[in-house]
């Protein structure tokens, strides 16, 4: 009886172990052999990664995954999403459970240097901010002397607040909540004078309120949070694919190539557009991709502006303005290197 149980257990173990991914091969080879990209996203953040009523993921981080999948396969649906949370995200990447982590992750020195991961280019420049009720009559974070501030426990959120308030010679009282819903309710019910988080997150908290017009995000940005996709360390080909897929999205916006006009742009006289879309040269093959990889990304996912507007922009529930996430020639931080 027990012998049989042991054999069943052994069979189950082999079944689990057969899901092993052979990492000796490069990530690109592994992904191609599998026929699907596996992308780590958040467990549900409005605008960045959220499953709809049909369980289909949508959002800005999700579109980054789809762009990479399209670069490799020419098909935005050849991607499986794995939900990761703050605790498990890096481990999932290190252990090979996911090929790329696209989950509102801030690029920092210590993460890059010590976690066995490499970052792609920042896809979204965020920063920690503060939100208050309009009725408080405060126009600047510097007026918040002695305020109670709600936050989620984070490695840096409280630290940034302490630094900011000390630098300005002001005091504040920190109120920490483990659960986002509790945190938001505490703010809306007046338990705290202000709530602090990344600005994109503040916008989503505001969007969730009964009357978003009653709350205002203060102008100060008290930390830098460049959110970037991450890959495993020491696979520069794979990192190139991720980086250049992101830059392709930005360059397409810069060149005015959109999802709707990409077919006409194939006839464009601009040599850079020709190189990007694979009309001349074969940039894609240098990365081990199809030469039409750029065309495919724009055709199926759109350019950066389209991605932003669709998921985060003024027309969405988040209603974010582009802010620093504008092209360099319009005063923003997006500066895709040249495609040549």
């Amino acid at each position, binding site marked *: 009886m027990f012998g*049989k*149980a042991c054999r*069943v257990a052994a069979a*189950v173990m082999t079944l*689990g*172990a057969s*899901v*092993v*991914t*052979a*990492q*000796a091969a490069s990530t690109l080879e592994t992904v191609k052999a599998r026929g699907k990209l*596996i992308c780590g996203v958040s*467990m*549900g*953040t*409005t*605008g960045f990664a*959220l*499953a*709809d*009523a*049909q*369980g*289909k*993921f949508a959002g800005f981080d999700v579109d980054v995954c789809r762009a990479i999948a399209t670069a490799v396969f020419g098909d935005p649906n050849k991607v*499986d*999403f*794995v*939900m*990761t*949370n703050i*605790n*498990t995200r890096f*481990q*999932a990447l*290190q*252990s*090979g*459970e996911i090929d790329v982590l696209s989950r509102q992750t801030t690029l920092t020195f210590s993460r890059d240097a010590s976690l066995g991961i490499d970052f792609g280019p920042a896809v979204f420049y965020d920063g920690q901010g503060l939100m208050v009720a309009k009725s408080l009559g405060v126009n600047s974070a510097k007026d918040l002397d002695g305020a109670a501030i709600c936050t989620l426990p984070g490695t840096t959120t409280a630290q940034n607040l302490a630094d900011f308030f000390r630098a300005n010679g002001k005091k504040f009282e920190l109120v920490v909540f483990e659960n986002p*819903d509790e945190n938001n309710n505490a703010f809306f019910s007046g338990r705290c004078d202000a709530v602090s988080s990344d600005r994109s997150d503040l916008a989503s908290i505001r*969007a*969730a*309120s*009964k009357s978003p017009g009653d709350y205002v995000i203060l102008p100060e940005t008290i930390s830098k949070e460049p959110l970037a996709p991450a890959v495993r360390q020491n696979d520069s080909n794979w990192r190139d694919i991720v980086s250049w897929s992101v830059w392709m999205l930005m360059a397409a916006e810069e060149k005015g190539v959109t999802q709707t006009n990409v077919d006409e742009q194939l006839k464009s006289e601009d040599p850079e557009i020709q190189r990007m879309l694979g009309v001349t040269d074969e940039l894609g093959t240098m990365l081990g991709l199809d030469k039409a990889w750029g065309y495919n990304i724009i055709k199926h996912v759109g350019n950066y502006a389209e991605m932003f507007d669709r998921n985060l922009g003024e027309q*969405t*529930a*988040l209603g974010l303005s582009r802010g620093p996430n504008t092209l360099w020639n319009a005063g923003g931080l997006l500066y895709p290197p040249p495609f040549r």
Partner: protein
Amino acid sequence: MAEARNVTRRPAHRNSALKVYFGTPGNTVVTLVCVAILAFAAKAAISWLLINAVFSGTPEDCKAGAGACWPYLAAKLRYMLFGIYPFDEQWRPFMATILFVVAMAISGIPRLWGRPLVVAWAALLPVLFLLMSGGTLGLAHVPTSQWGGLPLSFMLTFVGLICALPLGILLALARLSNLPAIRVLAITFIELVRGVPLISVLFMASVMLPLFMPDGMTFDKLLRAQVAIILFAAAYIAEIVRAGLQALPRGQTEAAQALGLHFWQYTYLITVPQALKTVIPPLVSLFIGFFQDTTLVVIVGLLDFLNTVRTAMRDPNWQGIAVLEGYLFAAVVYFVFSAIMGAYSRYLEKRFRVGHD
């Protein structure tokens, strides 16, 4: 037993009931206040749940209404139940859940307990796994990372407990063993596992374990969580079963030995069945607790039922409109299944008492 029942029944007289509630001025006041509070709560609940509720329409209709927003549940029901499992394939987790619940119900009939049932379960579990996972027989492959919702909660709880029960019984026997090596091993395992919270066991299995594995070797995330739950539950079951074994009169074992039965024979036929009978109530409490504790797997990136309900609320179309409705739905589902388990435990107790007292 029978006498005790009569004693409690005797004062259940109509007059004495009135006396209890309205006998003294103080009692009358307390009764009236309680009735008023109950009536007020019931009125508020009914008006929120039914009278002011919005039964069909869009998020805008709900925003305008003052009551519960039932279209939200309708729109999000399948996501809450099955998570991100591919929409067109959701009949598979549905069928698997139905099959599983039916199988559990049938297994609950004591007359059917025996070897055939064990064989049937050994056959059923792979079938359910195939149904969920696919990859053969024309079923599309669905990786375990896309499983979620109620089937996931059921699987983690009940597959976990089904596997943990025999393991726990073995551990209990090992802890009572006369062989020091086995006893020490069992004590070490049980105390180690009981000494840490479930969260940290899950965390070890999901975060630490893969780092110790050879490069590029990963076990399925769900399997890791499932094994963690089995080991954790086994330690608690072991202690409950040990209590049952120690409550048995020594004479039972001695008589069995005198009849010439060897250890496994009297363990299987005499001691363990009696011990299990005694510990039904704490065992079922543990099961109910585990059914609710599985929701902790969210920290290792798995979406169980409660957390599909939670993430469903973040849909921007419905954000800020429906919050209580989702939690209420989750509460009802958890309550129904917990109540069924509780009722079943009372049934078993009653059944096994028969012919005893």
